[in-house]
């Protein structure tokens, strides 16, 4: 059995989760601070969650392809995102970002306003408050978001096959390998990948539930 889809999937989803984590947390912070256009920006950021992945993939293909601005820029160094691992990472990042952003924003909004106001009266700058008060107090929720984003990135199919294609050993992730195996009538191979994906996703969800329980356990104690 060729293990390359497993490695490609892990590589893609780990890098995507890292980017999603940094961008998602920061964007969630900025959006909670917004007064105007909150709904609009929230809508745009959540869109990839509700759009069919093939639509996201098609959009990415058009905006990163040869005829796009980004594509022309990349063409200068003779590169193309289409059919590359980078394409797979971008696709996974875009579809997993809403999950990270939503979870984190929820955590930030549920924080006790009093703690933040106390920090303010004690003279902490807004950025220090973000780093030293908001982040540590939402730690478990953010970790739950990270795992959720990872699981989503791992399962990404529609956008990935559009942007990165389905090149065995190069861009063929586990989800795409299942599709190919089914198309080729290779049931045993499909079952094997389904099993591997099932196990990884299940373990991820168990870990996520653990984090969520911790967060609410802590919140409960704070109230009492």
């Amino acid at each position, binding site marked *: 059995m060729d293990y390359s889809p497993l490695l490609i999937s892990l590589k893609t989803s780990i890098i995507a989760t890292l*980017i999603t984590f940094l*961008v998602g947390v*920061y964007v969630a912070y*900025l959006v909670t*601070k917004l007064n105007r256009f909150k709904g609009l920006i929230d809508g745009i950021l959540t869109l990839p969650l509700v759009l069919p992945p093939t639509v996201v993939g*098609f959009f990415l*293909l*058009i905006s*990163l*392809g*040869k*005829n*796009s601005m*980004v*594509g022309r*820029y*990349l063409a200068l*160094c*003779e*590169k*193309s*995102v*289409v*059919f*590359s*691992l*980078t394409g797979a*990472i*971008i696709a996974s990042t875009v579809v997993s970002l809403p999950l990270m952003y939503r979870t984190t924003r929820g955590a930030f909004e549920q924080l006790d306003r009093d703690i933040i106001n106390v920090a303010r009266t004690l003279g902490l700058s807004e950025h220090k408050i973000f780093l030293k008060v908001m982040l540590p107090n939402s730690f478990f929720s953010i970790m739950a978001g990270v795992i959720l984003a990872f699981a989503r990135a791992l399962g990404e199919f529609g956008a990935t*096959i*559009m942007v990165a*294609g*389905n*090149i*065995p*050993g*190069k*861009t063929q992730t586990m989800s795409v390998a299942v*599709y*190919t195996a*089914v*198309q*080729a*009538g*290779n049931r045993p191979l499909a079952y094997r990948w389904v099993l591997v994906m099932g196990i990884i996703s299940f373990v991820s969800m168990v870990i996520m539930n653990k984090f969520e329980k911790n967060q609410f356990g802590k919140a409960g104690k704070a109230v009492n």
Partner: protein
Amino acid sequence: MNHRRILIFLLIMILSTTVLFGCKSEDVSTEDDDIPDETPKKTVELLVSAAASLTDVMEELAEEYKAVEPEIDLTFTFGSSGALQAQIEEGAPVDVFMSAAQKQMDSLKTDGLMLDDTIKTLLENKVVLITPKDSELKISSFEELDDDTIKKIAVGDPGNVPVGQYTEEIFQSLELKDKVEPKLVLGNDVRAVLTWVENEEVDCGVVYATDAFTTDKVNIVTEAPEGSHKEVTYPAGVVKDSKHSEEAKTFLDFLSTEKAASIFEKYGFSMK
């Protein structure tokens, strides 16, 4: 407000990192020079975009091709013909395109994205009537489908499954449509139809020959009569932007050789 500045900074960061990543990533169709090879000949990598239904057969053909042209390295990407078409339109570095329908190839040709003189109709897929392996039905043609012993016929949904549209054409041209209509069970794709027949959920079904060849749990009763439906053809051609069009042409020629034909036929395809 310095938030805006940070946001702009972040945006520039994301853009530049993607560009950096893009520059580092390997281009799929350039020469491969990380193989320590003593011969001065360079390996040429060809990227073939092929319809998903060609997955199995192309992998076997690639093995065969290694013996014929060792310095050409074949890489495949499989997907639905429509998606492959969109990718080529957006400049994916593809050398050879093998479509499961004429429509996608024609559209690329009209847009001037193919080398016109390389396009040829390579393969044909037949539409066949299948029954479960242990079926006791005595049936030998499409015309007998109106028989009362047949209760359920699985076909692709003509609304969105290509094989379903062909099946509808067959029923219409054989003037069976009204008689079989109440027996039809509509599948969401051709694999669903095949699975129903394999598991004896239905008495018989209509699929492509290549689908029937993937399993030993079904019998092929008969092919659809000549002219009862539009031909199911697989065109292939070299993409205009290919950097290795000569090698791509050589590969296409190989696909028409007898050696390749025998492999295609093993998977249920007919040569054109």
